């Protein structure tokens, strides 16, 4: 209890050596985002490419992980194959608690294994490397099933990370699948695993920790549990889940359709959150340590032969995957969307990047910029069969076209044309055509993610066009998120975990020093992340904004391009200031 330093498991894949070290100070970094960037500062190679064998792949939990509800996420820090710069990705599942009970605050994996390898991490940081050359080429689901037999210990509590063919083939956006339904999705963490010949990681910690005496901690826990379950603060995440946003965004003409050629379509009824729930929802499940249960699993029932021969699959769905594999591709049937999501899962790709890349390909195909000699199958909006085949071609880098598309839509567009309608905001866009502030936030933001800051919300709730105010909002919102992602809490809980509440949580566990300087910690983490991003080559003034984004029409009317450009210039300036060397 109340140790000031972190316990970090250092693993060298080349030699199989590992050791637990004491690292850093909780009162400086808290954990999560802060710990990951501190570890990259210490062990990363800012000037070397992402696939340099000694680049670290970092997984970090935080000081509050497991101690309070929704403190259930893990931060992955790595050099991204997408842009060869420092990046973060976040995931839940059982990984956070499994790491907590392994006794490790973070794991740093360096080196390249001599052959395809699975890494087992157990209680006390016990490490086991297993030659799994026979799993190379297997899809994510088959790999998971076989891993359960290869690592029989801690059955029922293990967390299993694995990559699919996309990570092996070094796409720019291969994901790491976590416990079947969660992912380190964006910016290619799975590709880094592939470059290390690391097919899978199994974490099976079972050690318990002593809690402080007295009532302060238990009272604090009970109150937060009450807020997240007995009030309606988080009800929507369990009910329809994030998919509930499809219909309202479509109604607001802010939902990207058919490669952002439209922002609304009456066919939304076929793939709304309500429809997914009514037609496909099998059950909800949760990350360990979170009572919400936001993970929605749909059932895909398919007749595979005559008479009554059926098979079924359980497929996770959310707002963003339905946008990427649904509206962007013009698919308006929930079953078809699940079919595609299932295929993307198997290959191990980030669904948002894969879906948006294929949406660009479909528009390029319709314009004659590319043909079947590149795409191998016809890619037509609304026709699922072509996209299903294309997902396999993309995930396996079947030809030069798909290899380039797998590095990022703009890479393919640079070679074939069609850059104007590549829906890329730093990386393939998230599902918000809400306007100038979101386009600014995602195109320049630290993770190029809708989760960096709530730009989409600002677009919907603020009517003015005050550049300074909007940029100040993005910077401040990012700072507050840095705090939660250093604890590491789920961003869905941001309304519950205000700064004073987080301070009380830390104090109830004996980390009063950290609890007393949360504002300073969050600023230091925010700046350290930007410094590392800039040190690895990022120039926010060089991020292109494809023309398609200036052609968008939503409920507010046309995009105000001068306002958008002013926002991007001002936000780039703010980023440069945040990332200025200390």
């Amino acid at each position, binding site marked *: 209890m109340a140790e000031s330093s972190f316990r970090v498991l250092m693993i060298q894949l080349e030699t199989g050596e590992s050791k637990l070290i004491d690292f850093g100070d909780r009162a400086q970094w808290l954990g999560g985002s802060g710990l990951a960037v501190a570890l990259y500062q210490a062990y990363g190679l800012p000037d070397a490419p992402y696939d340099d064998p000694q680049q670290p792949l970092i997984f970090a939990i935080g000081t509050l992980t497991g101690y309070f509800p929704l403190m259930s996420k893990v931060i992955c820090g790595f050099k991204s194959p997408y842009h060869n710069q420092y990046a973060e990705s976040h995931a839940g599942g059982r990984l956070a608690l499994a790491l*907590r*009970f392994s006794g490790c605050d973070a794991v740093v994996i360096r080196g390249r294994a001599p052959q395809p390898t699975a890494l087992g991490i157990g209680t006390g940081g016990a490490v086991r490397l297993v030659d799994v050359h026979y799993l190379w080429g297997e899809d994510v689901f088959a790999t998971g099933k076989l891993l359960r037999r290869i690592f029989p210990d801690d059955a029922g*509590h293990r967390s299993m990370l694995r990559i699919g063919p996309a990570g092996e083939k070094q796409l720019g956006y291969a994901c790491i699948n976590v416990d079947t339904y969660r992912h380190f999705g964006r910016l290619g963490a799975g590709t880094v695993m592939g470059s290390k010949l690391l097919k899978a990681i199994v974490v099976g910690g079972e050690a318990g920790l002593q809690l402080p005496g007295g009532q302060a901690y238990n009272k604090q826990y009970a109150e937060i549990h009450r807020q997240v379950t007995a009030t309606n603060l988080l009800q929507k995440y369990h009910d329809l889940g994030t998919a509930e946003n499809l219909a309202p965004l479509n109604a607001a003409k802010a939902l990207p359709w058919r490669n952002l050629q439209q922002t609304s379509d009456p066919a939304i009824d076929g793939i709304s959150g309500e429809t997914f729930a009514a037609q496909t929802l099998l059950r909800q499940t949760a990350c360990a340590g979170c009572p919400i*249960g936001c993970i929605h699993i749909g059932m895909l029932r398919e007749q595979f032969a005559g008479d009554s021969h059926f098979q079924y699959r359980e497929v996770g769905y959310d707002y963003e995957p339905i946008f990427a594999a649904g509206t962007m591709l013009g698919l308006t049937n929930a079953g078809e969307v699940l079919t595609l999501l299932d295929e993307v899962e198997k290959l191990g790709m980030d669904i948002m990047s894969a879906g948006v890349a294929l949406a660009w390909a479909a528009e390029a195909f319709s314009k004659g910029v590319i043909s079947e000699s590149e795409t191998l199958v016809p890619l037509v909006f609304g026709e699922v069969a072509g996209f299903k085949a294309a997902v396999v071609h993309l995930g396996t880098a079947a030809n030069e076209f798909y290899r380039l598309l797998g590095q990022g839509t703009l890479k393919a567009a640079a070679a074939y044309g069609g850059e104007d309608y590549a829906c890329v905001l730093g990386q393939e866009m998230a599902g918000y055509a809400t306007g100038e502030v979101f386009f600014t936030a995602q195109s320049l933001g630290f993770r190029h993610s809708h989760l960096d800051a709530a730009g989409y919300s600002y677009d919907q709730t603020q009517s003015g066009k005050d550049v300074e105010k909007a940029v100040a909002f993005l910077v401040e919102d990012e700072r507050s998120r840095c705090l939660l992602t250093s604890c590491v809490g789920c961003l869905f809980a941001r309304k519950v975990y205000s700064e004073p509440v987080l301070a009380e949580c830390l104090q109830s566990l004996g980390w009063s020093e950290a609890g007393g300087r949360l504002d300073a910690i969050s600023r230091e983490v925010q700046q350290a992340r930007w410094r590392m991003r800039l040190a690895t080559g990022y120039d926010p003034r060089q991020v292109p904004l494809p023309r398609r984004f200036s052609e968008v029409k939503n409920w507010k009317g046309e995009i105000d391009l001068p306002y958008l450009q002013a926002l991007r210039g001002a936000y780039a300036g703010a980023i440069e200031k945040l990332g200025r060397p200390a």
Partner: protein
Amino acid sequence: MKRLKAVRMERCIGCHCCSLACARLVHQRLSWETAGVRIQSSGGLSTGFQARLCLACDPAPCAQVCPTGAYRQRPGGGVLVKLDLCSRCGACAKACPVAAVTLDETGRPYVCIHCGRCVPFCPHECLALVENRTHQEVSHG
């Protein structure tokens, strides 16, 4: 006597809040394993969850094999626990037919004491305190 029963496990979302509550409130630990109720997936997360907890046997095999009296028969099923008498022999865990007794790294046993403190932390009422049926009632359906 009431007992804790996993009455609606088909609703379980795998959040582990019950195990964490037991470990926290009964044992003053942060753990999902050293607890009287433990949630596990069986064959991967796509197959749902099962609860491991004491079925409130009467007579209780774990109490019958305990050589020190640390586990004694609880009237109405289950066991009364006096940890200060426990010799860490682990016989209780071996005797339990449903693996409801777990040992930590020191050999200390953990078992459900049917106190119900986990119940309010389950978001979907999977767990409940119910009246235990006597052996006679069970035998006669």
